[in-house]
């Protein structure tokens, strides 16, 4: 083995040499059009899409270096806005509050969801108005206008919505498909209506890891929230099109100013321990969340912000007063897990450990907590005194299985019914789709993949560059490479989730590499050294010089001068890779010498 | 008592992968045709530089290493043809004392266990008391007194000289007739070497032992032995009565060896002429054809390119050299 060590050293040297050579090619004034694209290493879709994008952009002269990073590395860089571009999935839920979080300039703080540092005062104004009105129609119109402006600016490029690919064991029937799939915290219908043709009365749902925290006030991940959606009732539920339907509340009214919501509760509703559920419990739940500044649950952040006071005129009426109107206030209060006052008034720390569940896990939902074997499974039983339609299954077991492959095998054996999260690996999806032993269900998932730019960093400070990239990307090819596990979208508000909240007429960027090249040349990019990668050279990019593009439709530039790269944060001194390369080289040589001397 | 005939011990040499593919196999010829006899009660010193094959010869005679070919006749039987049971019987009669007393004793056994083990294996005594007495006697024989002080101790607690005494006691406990002493004092301090050698001589007289005394030190050989056999690169160069060989060496190699023996008297040492030999001992893998000493021999002639035979040139004196004729 030692004999080959010099060989390895030589190999390492060979790998270093390109690093030493590259920075010498272009002069510093003529900056190459290149950037680093971060993708999430464990997400196959993110990585593959990133690679396809890099290929596509290379064709129009943009050099993309894809780095696949772990979230522990990637997220902090995004939080600190220390990146060029990134491509991964963001999440949405039944109310498009993300539209504010992603595009309002106030959300561009460290860790804020406006990760692209998008600032447009006009958009800010529209969003402020949209999110402070109780008038849903007015809010929709403001949404449309904001989305049109955003699509013109392209702070990021929406790519596709992932498909939720679910497999069910043979014999199971009658699940409900809706956005985020048949098994999701927003889907209260599947566990009630699903049944097994062969008379099996136990449904087993696979989780990839533990369901904790079991407290509905601390539940902050999809596993915990799904468990809570089974054990705890909410005032409203969602139909397959995500429209609110009566649940604990049989009806509701919203005042004209949008500042008061009145819920009329169902009568004769019981907690799992037999005590009656009243408006007192609902009021207690809202107040508890506000007082304790609870971090779990689905819309609690908005609830804490909006709640002014709760009134309980009688046992079955709850009147909620808001501090300010909010177009999604019904969802915020309606889709909150209601907890029993007689148990929770004793609970000081809302994030209690799972070992407390036998005592604390009392809800009013269709299933009640039976037991939790740490790390193994969570057993629920049908609550026979539930107010609604009796579920067809008698038991619901949440089983923890780490591996997707093992899960599929157990579904084929009939030991497991289905799983909580849709499959992520394209290879496995391909295998599952053609497996005759499985029933495959595909729905729109809640993960939207996007290509984000750091709008504060050159070259993304230039709008034409962002637009050119939008034209240069062929989303059809990306989705095809991903075995069709995504649904292409050009919208920033998704029609598939939010219906007419989405603007049907946003500017679309159809795949057009010629147009992309033209836009880049207008922005001052031209291939100076003939290596296929464009450089920023505004003088040479003037239409008077012979242009390499065939299209003669280019108009003389009347655009305002684009910002020069001198304002960017990139160091203009010696390239850091050169310095690093030389240091590594020296270290390797020293190590080799030391090693040889030792021998 | 012991006759060694044309003993050969060849070890397969490590060859390169490529050579083994081509079917080339090579051997280290550690012992390559050694013949000699030892008479009852005699001490034969086997002398040679390191790598000459003298230790291998000693071990091969006792079948601690399996010889490649040859014969070893001990009291009328060929040792090399003994079966397991007969071999066990043979080991009662022929024993060995190793060079390094630091390594030859099992570090995890007490002195008593080390010395008593041969008794146990051969079921010499029926009772523990008899065995104890025998061990005590053996330790007294090698002057480890009082024996009780040593029995419960471990080898690492003893000095080198004490350990070698234990090794001797262990070797002698079954009352063997023949002992191979493989450089028994070379690892010891000079001050105790003589003590051990004297002890061995005393024991030889007491029990009527026969020794094959292996050493690289001619002075030691002269001090202890009746006859000397000189080995070089796996072959015997010269055999003869000790005094004659030392005072009148016949083989050029013996002459070189003797000229390098340190002499205590500085005057005498100055007056003597050392014979220098060029080059280094060749590897036992790539042996030169002809006389093994030929490439380095200061008296080499053309005829030396042929292999010489061990011939009795004078009564009792055998030499393997073309230049020495009776």
């Amino acid at each position, binding site marked *: 083995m030692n004999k080959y060590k010099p060989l390895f050293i030589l190999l390492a040297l060979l790998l270093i040499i390109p690093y030493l050579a590259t920075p010498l090619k272009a002069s510093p004034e003529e900056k190459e059009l290149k950037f680093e694209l971060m993708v999430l290493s464990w997400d196959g879709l993110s990585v593959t899409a990133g690679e396809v994008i890099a290929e596509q952009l290379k064709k129009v002269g943009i050099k993309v270096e894809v780095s696949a990073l772990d979230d522990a590395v990637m997220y902090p860089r995004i939080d600190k806005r220390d990146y060029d571009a990134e491509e991964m999935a963001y999440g949405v839920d039944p109310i498009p509050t993300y539209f504010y979080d992603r595009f309002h300039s106030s959300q561009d703080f460290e860790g804020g969801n406006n990760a692209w540092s998008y600032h447009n005062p006009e958009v800010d104004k529209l969003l402020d108005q949209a999110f402070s009105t109780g008038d849903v129609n007015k809010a929709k119109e403001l949404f449309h206008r904001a989305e049109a402006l955003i699509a013109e600016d392209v702070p990021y490029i929406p790519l596709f919505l992932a498909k939720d690919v679910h497999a069910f064991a043979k014999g199971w029937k009658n699940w409900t498909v809706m956005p985020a799939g048949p098994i999701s915290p927003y889907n209260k219908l599947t566990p009630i209506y699903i049944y097994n043709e062969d008379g099996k009365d*136990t449904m*087993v749902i696979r989780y990839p*890891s533990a369901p*904790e*925290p079991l407290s509905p006030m601390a539940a902050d991940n999809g596993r915990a929230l799904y468990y809570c959606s089974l054990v705890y009732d909410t005032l409203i539920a969602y139909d397959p099109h995500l429209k609110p339907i009566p649940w604990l509340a049989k009806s509701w009214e919203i005042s004209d100013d949008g500042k008061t919501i009145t819920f009329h509760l169902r009568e004769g509703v019981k907690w799992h321990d037999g005590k009656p559920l009243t408006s007192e419990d609902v009021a207690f739940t809202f107040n508890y969340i506000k007082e304790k500044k609870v971090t779990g649950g689905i819309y609690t952040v908005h609830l804490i912000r909006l709640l002014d006071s709760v009134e309980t005129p009688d046992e079955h009426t709850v009147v909620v007063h808001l501090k300010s109107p909010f177009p999604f206030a019904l969802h915020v209060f309606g889709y909150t897990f209601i907890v029993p006052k007689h148990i929770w008034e004793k609970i000081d720390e809302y994030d209690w450990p799972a070992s407390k569940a036998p005592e604390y896990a009392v809800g009013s939902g269709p299933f009640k907590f039976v037991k939790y074997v740490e790390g193994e499974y969570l057993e629920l039983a049908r609550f026979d005194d539930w107010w609604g339609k009796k579920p067809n299954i008698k038991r619901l077991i949440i089983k923890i299985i780490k591996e997707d492959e093992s899960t599929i095998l157990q579904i084929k054996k009939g030991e497991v019914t289905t799983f909580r999260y849709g499959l992520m690996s394209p290879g496995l999806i391909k295998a599952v789709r053609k497996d005759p032993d499985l029933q495959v269900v595909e729905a729109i998932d809640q993960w939207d993949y996007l290509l984000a730019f750091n709008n504060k960093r050159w070259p993304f400070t230039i709008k034409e560059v962002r637009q050119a990239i939008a034209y240069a990307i062929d989303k059809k090819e990306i989705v095809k490479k991903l075995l069709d596990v995504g649904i292409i979208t050009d919208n920033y508000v998704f029609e598939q989730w939010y219906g007419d909240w989405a603007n049907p007429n946003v500017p679309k960027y159809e795949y057009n590499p010629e147009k992309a090249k033209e836009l880049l040349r207008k922005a001052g990019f031209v291939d100076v050294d003939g290596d296929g990668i464009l450089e920023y050279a505004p003088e040479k990019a003037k239409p008077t010089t012979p242009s390499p593009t065939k299209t003669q439709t280019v108009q003389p530039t009347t655009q305002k001068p684009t910002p020069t790269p001198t304002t960017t944060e990139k160091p203009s001194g010696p390239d850091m890779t050169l310095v690093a390369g030389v240091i590594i080289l020296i270290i390797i040589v020293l190590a080799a010498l030391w090693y040889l001397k030792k021998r | 008592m012991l006759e060694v005939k044309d003993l050969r011990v060849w070890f397969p040499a490590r060859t390169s992968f490529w050579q083994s593919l081509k079917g080339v196999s090579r051997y280290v010829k550690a012992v390559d045709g050694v013949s000699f006899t030892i008479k009852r009660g005699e001490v034969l010193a086997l002398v040679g530089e390191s790598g000459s094959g003298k230790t291998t010869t000693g071990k091969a005679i006792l079948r601690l290493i399996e010889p490649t070919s040859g014969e070893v006749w001990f009291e009328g039987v060929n040792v090399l043809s003994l079966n397991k049971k007969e071999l066990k019987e043979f*080991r009662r009669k022929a024993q060995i004392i190793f060079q390094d007393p630091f390594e030859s004793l099992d570090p995890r056994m007490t002195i008593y266990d080390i010395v008593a083990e041969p008794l146990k*294996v051969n079921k010499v005594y029926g009772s523990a008391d008899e065995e104890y007495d025998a061990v005590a006697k053996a330790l007294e024989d090698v002057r480890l007194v009082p024996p009780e002080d040593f029995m419960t101790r471990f080898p690492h607690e003893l000095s080198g000289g004490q350990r070698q005494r234990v090794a001797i006691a262990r070797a002698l406990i079954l009352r063997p007739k023949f002992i191979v002493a493989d450089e028994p004092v070379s690892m010891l301090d000079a001050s105790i070497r003589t003590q051990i050698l004297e002890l061995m001589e005393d024991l030889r007289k007491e029990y009527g032992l026969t020794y094959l005394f292996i050493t690289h030190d001619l002075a030691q050989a002269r001090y202890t032995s009746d006859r000397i056999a000189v080995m070089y690169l796996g072959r015997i160069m010269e055999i003869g009565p000790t005094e004659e060989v030392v005072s009148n060496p016949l083989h050029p190699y013996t002459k070189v060896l003797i000229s390098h023996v340190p002499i205590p008297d500085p005057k005498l040492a100055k007056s003597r002429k050392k014979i220098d030999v060029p080059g280094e001992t060749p590897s036992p893998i790539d042996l030169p054809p002809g006389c093994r000493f030929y490439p380095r021999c200061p008296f080499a002639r053309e005829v030396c390119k042929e292999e010489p035979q061990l011939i009795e040139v004078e009564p009792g004196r055998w030499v393997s050299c073309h230049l020495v004729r009776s």
Partner: protein
Amino acid sequence: MGFKEYVARRLLSSLVTFFLIIVLNFFIFRIMPGDPTRTIARDARLLPEQRELLKKRFGLDRPLWDQFILYLVNLFRGDLGLSFQYRGTPVVEVILGRRMLNTFLLMGSSIAVALVIGMTLGTIAAWKRGSKADIAAIIFSLVTYSIPTFWMGMLLILVFGYYLDWIPISGTITTGVEYQTFWEYAADYLHHMVGPMVTLVISFIGYHFLLMRNSLLDVFTEDYMLTAIAKGLSTRTILFKHAMRNALLPMISVMALEVVYLFSGATATETVFTWQGLGLLIYESVVKQDYPVLQGIFIFMALAVLTANFVADVVYALVDPRIRYG
């Protein structure tokens, strides 16, 4: 230096090391950049007052020095803080209980079985070195040692779990079963343990085999092995009484190192079989950046390694008479 003093010194140095690890363990996780509340609740929308409350809940609102003192005080009271991923659950509760027991039983039995099989095979192979059986065993060991356990586990699941339906595919017990007796539970548990255990035993055997074989081959070259042969001992006596006893010494330190596995688990195997042990916990805690749990596991591991090494040192001193206390 006496034995007692030696033990006392080793104990003291172990304690000092442990304290240094405790200190290091605290600061390593505090050096990490970023706001820890962002790893507790990765919701960018959290209001500033919510973040403040979270910090308070996890004791992150105090100055670093206060946190350190509190950490030490709590440590001696057996309190390792609250887990991030299992929000509000004490770290001790997460680590001890089922998870530690699962890892202990799986790793303990796998190592024990692999040790026995590996060492037996190693002994046989060393004795018959160069034979076909030896070469076959070496190839088997190298192959099983280098096969990724993850892949091997998957293969076992597919063949024995799915097609043949002999073993369960995942977990430590059957879901949703009420056991009537403890034995029913134990039988179910052991049935689930077959898969991961076979995987681990196969991957551990090679290592123990090669180690034992090499250790024995080293012993075989020692002179006291020749002494043992010269004594006329039987093959079995030589092998088990002399060779094994000495070859086992290096195995003691190996076993001490393997104690770490009892606490670190085997991440790959535990993951494939969803065997909820400490290996899987470490993996998930790294992914979810659950620093308090990692900190807790490291403390347990450090404690285990130090204890095991201390015990190994003492055992070594007891069984090997050569150890000099120093």
